């Protein structure tokens, strides 16, 4: 079936099998390998992307379900070559080690800050509770998100959600 969606601002059309999972469509058909395939059961969150403005687990979403929608991946986080404050926060606070969970974590973090610019630690923990990181023990991820929140409070930025 032919599926058209907007991915990181570009309209893309592909002829795919109806059963194709969004994660495989993004990775194997569109070549955007920053989104990762981790568990198949919606538990680990390495596959989190945005559909419209909502973070979803792309390993349990059919690509066909996103036809006509906006999909945003980690490759779409930068604006004009500038890192998103969330990306910068992860670098500054050692919020990643192997980097495999990182894209999904950052997509969720971005969505959180768009809704709640000054989250508490508990709110951050809850926001990323659908995702697993095996390397960091989470504290530095939380600091990274707090870093980004603080940065955005100090330098208000246009939220880049389309």
């Amino acid at each position: 079936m032919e599926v058209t969606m907007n991915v990181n601002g570009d309209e893309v059309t592909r002829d795919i099998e109806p059963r194709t999972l969004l994660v495989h469509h993004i990775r194997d058909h569109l070549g955007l390998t920053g989104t990762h395939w981790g568990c198949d059961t919606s538990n680990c969150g390495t596959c989190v992307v945005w559909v419209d403005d909502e973070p979803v687990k792309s390993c349990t979403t059919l690509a066909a379900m996103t036809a006509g929608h906006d999909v945003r991946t980690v490759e779409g986080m930068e604006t004009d070559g500038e890192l998103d404050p969330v990306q910068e926060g992860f670098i500054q606070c050692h919020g990643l080690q192997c980097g495999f969970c990182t894209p999904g974590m950052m997509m969720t973090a971005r969505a959180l800050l768009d809704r709640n610019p000054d989250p508490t630690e508990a709110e951050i923990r809850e926001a990323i509770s659908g995702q697993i990181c095996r390397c960091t023990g989470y504290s530095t991820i939380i600091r990274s998100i707090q870093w980004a929140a603080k940065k955005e409070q100090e330098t208000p930025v246009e939220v880049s959600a389309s």
Partner: protein
Amino acid sequence: MTVTEDPVDTNAVPTPDNNLNDHKPNGFGRMLRKEDPRLVRGRGQFCDDVTVPGMLHLAILRAPMAHARIVSIDKSAAEAHPKVKAVVTGEDLAAHNLAWMPTLSNDVQAVLATDKVRFQHQEVAFVVAEDRYSARDALELIDVEYEWLEPVIDVRKALEPDAPVIRDDLDGKTDNHCFDWEAGDAEATEAIFADARENGVVVTEDIVYPRVHPAPMETCACVADLDPVSGKLTLWSTTQAPHAHRTVYALVAGLPEHKIRVIAPDIGGGFGNKVPIYPGYVCSIVASLLIGKPVKWAEDRTENLVSTGFARDYIMRGEIAATKEGKIRAVRTEVLADHGAFNGVAAPVKYPAGFFGVFTGSYDLEAAYAHMSAVYTNKAPGGVAYACSFRITEAVYLIERMVDVLAYDLEMDPAELRLNNFIQPEQFPYESKTGWVYDSGDYEPTMRKAMGMAGYDELRKEQAEKRERGELMGIGISFFTEAVGAGPRKDMDILGLGMADGCELRVHPTGKAVVRLSVKTQGQGHETTFAQIIAEEIGIPPEDIDVVHGDTDNTPFGLGTYGSRSTPVSGAAAALVARKVRDKAQIIASGMLEASVADVEYEAGTFRIKGDPEKSVTIQDIAMKAHGAGDLPEGLEGGLEAQICYNPENLTYPFGAYICVVDVDPGTAEVKVRRFVAVDDCGTQINPMIIEGQVHGGLADGVGMALMEMISFDEDGNCLAGSLMDYLIPTAMEVPDWETGHTVTPSPHHPIGAKGIGESATVGSPPAIVNAVVDALKPYGIRHADMPLTPSRVWEAMRGNHTPPI
């Protein structure tokens, strides 16, 4: 000597306003990672991201039962699938003598089963197809007829005379015995136990460390591309040990070693899970050889959990002999180890139980003895993984749990009991009663620092008040010593390969450099820390140093990253290769400065004449001179580069004091980890930010193992933990904000005094958490409870119905 002050305040958190990250060290110190800019952009390249033109996809058919004879396999329907290129069974592999492969412990493992399957989800056949979905579709079309055989699942019954024999592939095998191993002096130990039974105290406890799984976020994968013209195999693979894998492939597949290039691209976590060679890799190589096209294999999460290297699975009886005053005199243990269907542990061959011999802990004993029996069962192979430091995780859990058992019986404070039994600083280097030589240690300051950070005395007061009110608060301590950095060539090898590491450093004419490593990061930040080691030694800034690793064609030979060995072994190699370059640079500098070599001194990238600081040249000046026109000092070759192979003279012995505070809900038995204080001593610190990260990750592992994680089986051998819905890993909701601190006791034999840190927290944290839970349950008269301490298991314990998990 121990430096108890933090090198930096590791609990300081960077903010957009503070200057924590502004300092750019030209050597050791907090430094942001060179890996991160690509990884935060989604521009890392993990194995499943690799795409090669013409690439096909491989999927593996796995056994539905734990023990069964293969009667027949009909693959005709799968072969008829329009997108299928090949369907291969064990019989097909056997025709090429490829059905079995060696494991890293000198056993053999089936690549694809030929005679029978020996664990549920064992590899039976593979399909190669045009895309990943079609390959999986075709698996459904393979018709395998099995004859059910009675499985051996209960490890305690594996050695019974009438137990079915799993490994009838081995000549003359009539039982499920894998190996026996012992350490220490049985007689001397028994003599002390006999005396203690009369005049002191003996405590005994049965302790289970259940089977768990490293479950890195990236599962295992590879792309095999065997060029039919040149005969060269390029294998992108999730491997922590690319060079060791290359050699094994050469031995298994009969390919000349120079025709194999193993590339480990970005690795999404390893934790020991990516040390063994799995059938999927070998199948992919065979497929590429057969078809003449590149072949990708990427396992799913279930395959990762049910078939790849598990960890632990030790049933231990621990015993301590002590005086009534609490002086520990001897430790003894009897272990039953479940190695699964094939002995696939990745430990040095002379240490079949890994470094479990370091089970004497941080204490000065009179005697110790360990005996182990390892057995085969119808479960997946593995055993040394999950940041275990070659079984030190089990050893530390045993001794640290047992010390608390002793404290319980003696009604002593567990902190005081530990402080009274530590090896004293003047005893280092300390030879343990099982023959290990601890390089350096100064335990009491580390313990005192952790107690101070935790507010130990106040916590005990709070606990007493809460107990009055019926609230369940527990305080758990562990003090661990690890042995990491395998290892000395005279003692340690894997499949005959000495556990050394090479390093090559080239300084380019403009003073930039490339350093090539034999180890491979899986998130530990080697691209940063190894640049810092070179910078510290020769003064070239870290950002001017490219770190190349994970490519056997472009790096010197070495055994890879596991067992916390990168810094102890490869880090030493990096420091020494830089010193070799510095020595040569000093000779060139002497020519440039027209002084004798002895009159030139080096400091932070600059060479000057002693007593004449005005006359100096930089390492960059020297690099150009080394490659440039004009004469060099007599007898000196041009260029500025060196290569070494470092053979460590001993292991390094990091240690730490951990204190955990838990609250147990008396109504639901849910355990909440309220606080966790970790004070680590890994010797000289290269990058405190990365060290803190390594510790944090290991602490979360400990929460997982202590409270949540277990690979369990039903009595038929069905694995009950085949997804992340069933195998529970901590999320941000289950772990506290970590409180970390450090002391620094350098290793005397390591060139920069560093010790390994990658596994310390995974090793040290489970006993602290379990000790805390058991301490919380003290009002119920509980002295021991086994992991995982899930609410239901804690609930049973509170009702006096605690049973081991296996």
